[in-house]
């Protein structure tokens, strides 16, 4: 069984999801799947945001620690968007180099560091996939099925990650079909709103509304489900 730190469990249990939005649970505290203590003895105690500040001072070890915490999720996301291991690695690398190059301008009051990093990697992946010729000719049905769950379940992931993934997927399934489709094709498929309007044959305004309503509803559903279910591993409590 995967070892989980007490902090990790605590972070999940005390998840605050009031509408007065504070940063959500600090998932990065949980991302310690393969500790290599020699590498991170100076960084392990730092928050993601403190690590970004260290990166801004040129601390490579801090960049490595951020990679250890967020890299796997970033890579999974890039693979989902790009469906190509090499391209996904490129997107992750460029995203982390962007972190390295611009850590000084990161504003912690605006977003968590992990959100920032994933945003960078995602945008890079989307820019890359939009250059790919194949997606212009591929039928949208293939995209839909790939976007909706093309990745086989990994067997070596941490329990919290599986829990969280299933929680988000369950919330997605509760959305009206057209909203779920719009979110998945946009975020995992890399399609722009105008591309989707054209390919789905609906007005652009409709696509924009579906994405807005879908994302807002998903946010609500995630807040609700995090209040209802708290993940409690058997070996604690």
């Amino acid at each position, binding site marked *: 069984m995967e070892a989980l730190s007490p902090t990790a469990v605590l972070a999940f249990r005390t998840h605050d999801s009031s509408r007065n*939005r504070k940063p959500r649970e600090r998932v990065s505290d949980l991302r310690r799947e393969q500790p290599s203590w020699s590498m991170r003895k100076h960084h392990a105690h730092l928050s993601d945001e403190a690590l970004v500040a260290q990166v801004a001072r040129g601390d490579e070890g801090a960049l490595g620690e951020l990679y*250890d915490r967020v890299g796997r999720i970033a890579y999974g996301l890039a*693979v989902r968007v790009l469906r190509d291991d090499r391209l996904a690695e490129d997107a992750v690398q460029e995203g982390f180099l962007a972190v390295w190059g611009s850590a000084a301008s990161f504003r912690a009051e605006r977003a968590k560091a992990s959100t920032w990093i994933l945003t960078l990697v995602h945008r*890079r992946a989307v820019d890359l996939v939009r250059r790919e010729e194949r997606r212009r000719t591929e039928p949208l049905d293939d995209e839909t099925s790939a976007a909706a769950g093309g990745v086989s379940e990994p067997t070596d992931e941490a329990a919290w990650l599986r829990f*969280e993934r299933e929680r988000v*997927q369950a919330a997605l399934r509760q959305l009206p079909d057209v909203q779920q489709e719009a979110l998945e094709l946009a975020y995992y498929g890399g399609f722009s709103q105008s591309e989707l309007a054209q390919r789905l044959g609906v007005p652009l305004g409709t696509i924009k509304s579906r994405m807005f309503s879908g994302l*807002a509803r998903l946010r609500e559903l995630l807040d609700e489900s995090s209040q209802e279910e708290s993940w409690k591993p058997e070996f604690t409590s």
Partner: protein
Amino acid sequence: METGIHELTAGYALDALDADERWAYETHLADCERCREELTSFWETTEALAIAAAGPAPNLDLRDRILTAARAERPVVVPLESRRGRFVPVLGAAAAIAAVVALAVGLWATQLSGDLDDARLALERERQAAAVLADPGARTVALEAGEGRLVVDDDGRAVLVLDGLDPAPTGKTYELWIFEGENASPAGLFPGQAGRDWVGLDATVDTGDVVAVTIEEAGGVEVSANDPIIASAPV
């Protein structure tokens, strides 16, 4: 607030806007605290979508590759000037793509920080220029006067790449022009810098246009009485 641009917050958080809409939204974001708050909140939801995409672990050597690449370039501590300087020496596609990413990030952070000033406009211009340089479909037009080249993409967006132009003298500025036949329209000002410099034009060019540079009094002019010191071949 207008509903349309507000709705774009979701599209922006999902990276589902086209390039021009992304620009329009980022410009709007600068002046709209409500959208910035909404975006911060939507980004938490897209982070959940990212976590839901979790799959196999990356190759073990990816970490080393990233750290090795990071070692090869120093982090940018001063946002604008050194970032500019950093990408000037090499204008290969890879460097230009890196510039696009870095500039996008700079813009992101600047806009979220709320300290908006001229740096934003400068960044926008640089980012557009970098995008043109990164475009594999862009073509190169030689200069008939001056050292360097003009790079033009399919949409007519143009970047002038200059070698060995000194900074403009005190109190003066370089001014860009687009000549459509005999008619010259101003296309932006730039200070110039030693070594290699690159500057995006404020307007697009058509086939047959000539891009030129004059030296003017600081602030620039609408109609120039000076002869160009740099001129491209017809586009």
